[in-house]
């Protein structure tokens, strides 16, 4: 089997991802000063999820990985989602 060359990330692309991440950090800190009641936590976590996706897709080059890694990663995320949601079903309706 021939060795498939892996995708090479260019410096400019990596730098623009970093730039986006820094902006989002600024946004999440700025938003935290505004009192939006119960919406503060979802907004902060939404921004965090977006930042994490950027790191995963580009820094950890998940975007360019084969099916094995992508499927196993998504399974892990699904497992985590089940763990969180089932725990909350228990706690919220106890």
């Amino acid at each position, binding site marked *: 089997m021939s*060795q*498939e060359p892996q995708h090479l990330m260019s410096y400019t692309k990596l730098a623009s991802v970093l730039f986006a991440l820094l902006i989002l950090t600024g946004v999440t*800190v700025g938003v935290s000063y505004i009192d939006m009641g119960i919406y503060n936590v979802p907004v902060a*976590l939404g921004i965090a999820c977006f930042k*994490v996706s950027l790191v995963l897709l580009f820094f950890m080059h998940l975007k360019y990985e084969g099916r094995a890694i992508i499927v196993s990663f998504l399974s892990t995320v699904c497992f985590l989602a089940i763990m969180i949601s089932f725990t909350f079903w228990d706690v919220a309706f106890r």
Partner: protein
Amino acid sequence: MKSSNDFTGIRIGMWLFLYSEIILFGGLFVLYAVYFHRYPDEFVEGGKQLNRIIGAINTIILLISSFTVAASITAIRLQNKKLSLGLLTFSIFCGLVFLINKYFEWGAKFHHDIYPNSDTLVSGPPGQNIFFGLYYVITGLHGLHVIIGMTLLMVSVVLILRNKVHAGRFAVLENCGLYWHLVDLIWIFVFPLFYLVL
């Protein structure tokens, strides 16, 4: 398989390990979420006692170091050994600065008599005790990961210096990089959960 450069296989192995780390921290975040649900006021009160500026600075430090690690892989693949070494050294330095910030942050909390089993926490409301208990466990475990990540990056530096890692064979560097990015990922969630709850 006789070839030692099955890049995909090596990465799958690393990812499998990272999944176990994700579940480990995921479990702690569930614990946090459940207690937040139970003691929302104390958690908000606790979060206000943490310095959000230091938290933000640490976030920026980790993000920049993640970028330099990713760029060092690009550099080694473009045969630019010097740049790659420089970027990795800078990342290790960032990790060190992160830990120094943590030291001062924890030190300030200790000074205010807020640490596991301190009088203030034991005699205070239970929610406050749980918030700071989780704070020390999660940031402490994350700090341990930062130390491990820095060690891995140092190993990569040595391997590059010895020409064991080069443009044709960089899987070790890549896996160390993946670990460092994981440390960053966890912090991206720790930061809003502890510092930005309002």
